[in-house]
């Protein structure tokens, strides 16, 4: 395969004016015996003695330009790092000597270069694409100076006979290879098109700049030819040596991964993670192959270095909750205690019938399923994705997994198939328990190979999907399993709960056993539910907590996937069935009840009159809706909690509390629940939450929450987790708000939506609530236009009447300005329909509104 000796071209310096590249970094290094290298090196620009050196190796077909942000970031004033980013020989602006190279040549040449540079320790290697293999080859041969390894979308293991990544395959067919990689720029262009968002034309041109002629592209073809796709490939032994040696590395490792990579897909990440089990993983769902372009490469790597290098390599990855020593009652303890209790645990109302599951049956089922799953090979710590609709089966499977110490993975079907698949796959479940539809997706989309069926499944479907067992079969297996199950520890992982995805791709929040128990206790304390106080759950997550609380739980007759199908009559029937006093619902379910209250028989109205606590969770409830509910439930306190997937509940407020609070800057969400601690991190003049956490009244900042029922970390999102847990023990919510003199929390919107004017920071929700009171306004959005720090506040109104033009008439503009005074509004615009974000049909997509307002107020045409 060696190509004939090709064109010889000397090394050169890159042209000037490439975006983000400082010409002062570039130098040529002549290494006798191998050639002249072009390298980026920030050494001479460093403000002080560096902590160490980051040695960066690009892949194919890029060049050291890939690392420009890391080179720049390394030159920071505090704890600087020298960054040396090489152009591999034949690539970038390094010398072309016409010789085709093999992996072992490249590793040896890199060693010769670092020797010539006199690179002393500590050295952290960084490699992308096939440069990852070269960097690891160097790493395993320089252990004396090696302090860490960083890997971006790469691979060290290609199973022989396995097909190469699909997009590479055409380029690997010898005849096609030269055409696609050398003769034309097809391979180059395909690679550069893998960025999310797309590269700017200037950056794309910079990446292409060393590869303008086919003579300069020879090494691109050679590189592809050197991919050891077959068992007898000449570079196979070298690759296998590196792959094996990597498993012996004990230095800190960071796997920074773009999930949207058609070349280096998740299986390569999983392979590397298995070889480097101590590695920190940041798998970005929105980034692709060029993860260094899509993510904050410089800031991210340096933050990781600050935490890990120099550091104790024995540290656990991602950090675990420090053992608190607090007494811990396992989630299923109340259930296990009632193994002999024949009383009702779950009461499910369906049509005219009622299905009652006694405590004894539920407890037995949970025990059997736990043992049965263990028999099937599910180990403590394994992840089990559960895709089963709310009901007895779901409850039993979840408690079984928690008992077993398996980690349940739960994502909302509302994410859609793509979002759901992205979430489940990122959690790498060892098994999937699901209904038929979920199992089909699991098989087709490759979520897991161990599938367990919940609910009915035809024999042919079972065979086609390769289902290993149905839930009754799992229970049967459990009944005959002899061994006792070990009890999981309080700080073991227990669940991965995915966020709703309304603010970017869904993130998996990892809870410990202790965290789930604390969630149970927080809910029980806040709403007075426990043994002897049965409740009605028209909101699925709360139904799941019933057995943990030892409370009988009734599910009203409704389609749980469409909460608005709950009728007043069905709710009343459920209340009567268990003589309940507490109801948990969602705003949509509440709306359904209110819409059907005229059909309520007299005895139903009487039953609802007995309800003392009504909780509406999942989204903010408009006060109007709560007031209507008060008429239907005359003796109930109407509560609405504030919280998020990462911690729920955080605060709670009832209708009386909302009324007592009156109007203010944002939405009053009440006092922290017992065990929860709320602070704000004050915003600086730039609108960034940089201040030390405080409880001082009136100070606006990012809302920080703490409590035993907080997530332990995000799953495989190391950088995101670092940012969200900057303040030890607290979670940064991304919401902005303030605490008032009574200790109540007011939420003013999302941090990324604050408007930073010259006079100060404006939070949008308070403005919008005032504008929504103006006559003729249906909905509104408050956004900022212009540069941060001197932004102008703009209000975009969706009027009740038909819209003409873009600029509001004088009357509406004056009314809006008067409503929000003393805040100053530069423009009041009108739009016939404000966009709402896909997940929450009620939340206005302020980001989209801001983009539109920015364009039209600058005199550009734009559509909303």
């Amino acid at each position, binding site marked *: 395969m060696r190509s004939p000796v090709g064109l010889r071209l000397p090394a050169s310096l890159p042209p000037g004016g490439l975006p983000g590249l400082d010409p002062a970094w570039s130098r040529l290094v002549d290494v006798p015996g191998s050639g002249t290298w072009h390298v980026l090196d920030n050494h001479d620009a460093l403000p002080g003695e560096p902590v160490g050196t980051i040695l960066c190796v690009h892949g194919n077909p890029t060049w050291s330009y890939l690392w420009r942000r890391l080179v720049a970031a390394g030159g920071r004033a505090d704890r600087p790092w020298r960054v040396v980013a090489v152009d591999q020989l034949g690539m970038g602006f390094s010398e072309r000597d016409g010789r085709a190279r093999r992996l072992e040549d490249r590793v040896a040449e890199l060693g010769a270069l670092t020797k010539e540079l006199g690179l002393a320790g500590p050295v952290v290697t960084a490699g992308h694409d096939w440069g990852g293999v070269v960097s690891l080859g160097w790493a395993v041969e320089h252990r004396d100076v090696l302090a860490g390894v960083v890997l971006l979308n790469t691979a060290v293991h290609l199973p022989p006979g396995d097909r190469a990544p699909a997009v590479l395959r055409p380029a690997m067919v010898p005849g096609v290879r030269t055409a696609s990689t050398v003769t034309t720029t097809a391979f180059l262009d395909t690679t550069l098109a893998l960025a999310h968002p797309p590269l700017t034309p200037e950056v794309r041109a910079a990446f292409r700049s060393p590869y303008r002629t086919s003579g300069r592209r020879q090494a691109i073809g050679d590189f592809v030819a050197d991919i050891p796709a077959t068992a007898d490939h000449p570079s196979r032994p070298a690759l296998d040596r590196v792959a094996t040696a990597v498993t012996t590395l004990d230095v800190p490792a960071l796997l920074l991964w773009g999930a949207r990579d058609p070349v280096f897909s998740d299986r390569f990440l999983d392979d590397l993670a298995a070889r480097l089990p101590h590695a920190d993983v940041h798998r970005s769902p929105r980034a692709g192959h060029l993860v260094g372009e899509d993510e904050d490469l410089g800031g991210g790597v340096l933050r990781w270095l600050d935490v890990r290098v120099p550091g104790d390599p024995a540290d656990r990855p991602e950090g675990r909750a420090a053992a608190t020593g607090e007494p811990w009652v396992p989630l299923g303890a109340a259930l296990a205690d009632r193994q002999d209790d024949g009383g009702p645990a779950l009461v499910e109302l369906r049509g005219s019938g009622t299905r009652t599951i006694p405590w004894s049956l539920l407890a037995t089922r949970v025990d059997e399923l736990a043992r049965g799953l263990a028999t099937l090979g599910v180990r403590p710590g394994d992840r089990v994705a559960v895709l089963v609709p709310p009901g007895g089966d779901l409850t039993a499977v979840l408690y079984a997994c928690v008992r077993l110490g398996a980690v349940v993975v739960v994502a909302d079907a509302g994410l859609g198939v793509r979002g759901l698949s992205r979430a489940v796959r990122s959690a790498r479940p060892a098994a999937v328990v699901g209904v038929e539809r979920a199992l089909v997706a699991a098989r087709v989309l490759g979520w897991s190979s161990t599938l367990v069926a919940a609910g009915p499944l035809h024999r042919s479907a079972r065979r086609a999907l390769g289902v290993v067992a149905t839930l009754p079969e799992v229970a049967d297996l459990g009944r005959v399993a002899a061994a006792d199950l070990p009890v999981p520890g309080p700080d073991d992982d227990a669940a991965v709960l995915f966020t709703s995805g309304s603010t970017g791709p869904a993130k998996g929040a990892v809870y410990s056993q202790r965290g789930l128990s604390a969630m149970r206790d927080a809910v029980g304390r806040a709403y007075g539910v426990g043994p002897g106080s049965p409740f009605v759950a028209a909101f699925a997550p709360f139904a799941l907590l019933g057995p943990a609380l030892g409370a009988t739980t009734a599910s009203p007759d409704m389609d749980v996937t469409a909460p608005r199908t709950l009728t007043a009559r069905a709710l009343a029937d459920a209340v009567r069935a268990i003589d309940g006093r507490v109801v948990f619902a969602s705003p949509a379910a509440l709306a359904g009840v209110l819409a059907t209250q005229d059909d309520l028989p007299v005895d139903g109205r009487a039953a609802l009159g007995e309800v003392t606590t009504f909780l509406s969770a999942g989204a903010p409830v408009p006060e109007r809706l709560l007031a209507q509910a008060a008429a239907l439930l005359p003796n109930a306190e109407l509560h609405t909690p504030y919280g998020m997937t990462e911690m729920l509940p955080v605060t709670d407020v009832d209708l009386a509390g909302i009324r007592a609070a009156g109007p203010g800057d944002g939405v009053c969400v009440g006092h922290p629940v017992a065990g929860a601690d709320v602070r704000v991190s004050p915003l600086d003049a730039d609108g960034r939450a940089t201040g030390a956490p405080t409880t001082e009244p009136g100070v606006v900042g990012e809302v920080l929450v703490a409590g035993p029922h907080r997530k332990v970390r995000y799953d495989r999102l190391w950088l995101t987790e670092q940012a969200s847990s900057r303040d030890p023990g607290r979670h940064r919510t991304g919401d902005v708000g303030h605490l008032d003199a009574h200790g109540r929390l007011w939420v003013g919107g999302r941090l990324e939506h604050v408007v930073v004017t*010259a006079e100060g920071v404006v939070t949008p929700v308070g403005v919008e609530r005032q504008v929504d009171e103006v006559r003729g306004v249906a909905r509104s959005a408050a956004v900022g*236009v*212009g*540069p941060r*720090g*001197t*932004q*102008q506040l703009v209000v975009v109104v969706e009027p009740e009447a038909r819209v003409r*033009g*873009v*600029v509001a008439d*004088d009357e509406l*503009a004056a009314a809006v300005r008067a409503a929000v005074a003393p805040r*100053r509004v*530069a*423009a009041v*615009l009108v739009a016939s329909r404000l966009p709402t974000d896909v997940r929450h049909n009620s939340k206005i997509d302020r980001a989209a509104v801001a983009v539109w307002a*920015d364009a*039209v*107020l*600058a*005199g*550009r045409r734009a559509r909303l």
Partner: protein
Amino acid sequence: MTVDGSTVLVTGASGMLGGAVARALVAGGAQVRTFQRRPARVDGARDVLGSVTDPVATARAVAGCDAVVHLAARVDITGPEDEFRRVNVEGTRHLLAAARAAGAGRFVHVSSPSVAHVGGSLVGAPATAAEPALARGPYARTKAAGELLALETDTAAMRVVVVRPHLVWGPGDTQLIGRVVARARAGRLPVLGSGAPLIDTTYVDNAADALVAALTAPDAACGQAYVVTNGEPRPVLELLRAICVASGAPAPRVHVPGGLARALGAGLDAVWARFPLAGEPPLTRFVAEQLSTAHWFDQRRTREALRWSPRVSLDEGFARLAAAS
């Protein structure tokens, strides 16, 4: 520091802003001399008649002054560039030389944001350097050259501050308000495009305050240019409507697409350039561009350096305009 007791020369005091500055200085206790071709008739100030294009008259006017506020300029939208240059560049050169020779310690040069504007929208823009070669139209080009001359003259002996008020208006304004109202009355005030672009303006008293503040600003603030506005941008349609309402003129009704207006303006510019017709073209490309793109500015640096902030809000300004008409 105050202007109380010092002698200040105000050029161009027959204009709206010049008159307002002279009156503000008189109120502040300064000995005020006004210098322009027509009598400025500012109570308490001494009128000296003459043109900055006349070096002798200029030297006589500035003799014995502690400070100068230089507003005199040719401000028309069109015309032969030489005439602009004679006043805005050469006149400024004469006055700077005369002021330095007379021992003045402070020179406030009034310029325009258009000196740094090379087209397109200005969105929260900073005050960037004047660009005589790139600025649009003879007024902006010659003001840019004049501003650079002024900044070059900044020394410890005579500190120079450049202030660029943007779209100054108020009762008695013949430039912005006068033109808008005349066109509205003639039914010739079109709204270009959506009417949404944000435009920042300056109520005359705020601009006058800023110029007085520049006279007493600390030395560290000197040698630089500052854009001055109300810091309250509004959609251009809203501004035009407010001006019409306050002046009792009919509100604009005709909508013209922005691109068409710019093309039309460019065409009319060409016609007026070739055939010297009387007055101004009904729509110049410059005006069309001004009305269909955003123009608003970052005011933080200005307010900090000059220790000034506007006293009269936009709404208050429109109320005063209505009361005066």
